């Protein structure tokens, strides 16, 4: 039997911080505190270790190694001092999966109403996968998917089912 379209791996050890603010006013301070440029609409900036993703016109998500979380929470809170904003640790609220392999785009295309194959690098798409909310972007060799913690088992199951060997989307 052929191989799975992609390997589905739960990613642990990531810290995540939700930031809400007027990005026109607070963008520079946040960028400095995050150590990354403010992404364009639906974009994501990364230095390979940290990723700063655009979630909404007044919301960003900073993804970083767990070890850097506490310091980053302090830095970002400082950056918003005197500004109307919100900094919240959401690390534990999320479940992260890597979908890696030659058929990774097929796996995404079976679950999300998005043009997975055409999704550019540096673009984060918030959408749904089957019946649960997800954010998806390209990483080396495939995609990274963020879902909710409570539905992690469901997300893992539908990703694994979508990746079963021999079920690629190429015409036959």
């Amino acid at each position, binding site marked *: 039997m052929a191989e799975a379209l992609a390997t589905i791996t739960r990613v642990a050890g990531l810290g995540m911080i939700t930031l809400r603010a007027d990005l026109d006013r607070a963008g520079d301070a946040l960028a400095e505190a995050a150590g990354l440029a403010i992404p364009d609409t*639906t974009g994501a900036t990364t230095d390979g270790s940290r990723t700063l993703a*655009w*979630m*909404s*016109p007044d919301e960003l998500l900073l993804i970083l190694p767990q070890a850097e979380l506490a310091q980053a929470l302090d830095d970002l809170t400082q950056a918003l001092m005197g500004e109307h904003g919100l900094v919240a640790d959401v690390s534990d609220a999320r479940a992260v999966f890597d979908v890696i392999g030659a058929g990774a785009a097929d796996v995404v295309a079976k679950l999300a*109403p998005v043009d997975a194959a055409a999704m550019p690098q540096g673009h984060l*798409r*918030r*959408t749904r996968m089957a019946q649960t*909310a997800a954010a998806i972007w390209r990483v080396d060799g495939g995609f990274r998917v963020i879902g909710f913690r409570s539905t992690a088992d469901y997300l893992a199951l539908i990703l694994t089912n979508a990746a079963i060997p021999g079920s690629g989307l190429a015409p036959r």
Partner: protein
Amino acid sequence: MLILTCPYCGVNAEETELHPGGEAHLARIGPNGTDDEFEAYLFARKNAKGVHFERWRHAYGCGKWFLAARCTATLQVFGTYRAQTPHPPADIVEAIRKARPDWTPDWTPAEGTAE
């Protein structure tokens, strides 16, 4: 399947990513409203055949509520726009008039602005 472009994030989302919110541009009637005004605010809807303004939330996306101008009979979409406006903006009005020359707004656009 309606497909609408979220004016906040530019995503061309299909209906399953959106949450509908009914008629747009309702003016809230507060504690001082009369019975008739309050009844109209809560229950009276235009239910138009033709040009219609409605609320959608990009629920599986950026989470923002936006407004759509579309034709309920043909499903033509004249445009989508941000929710923070009491009336459709000028470019939407223009797009509707282009497609539906007979249509006239049922509000009075201010000079130089649609609001």
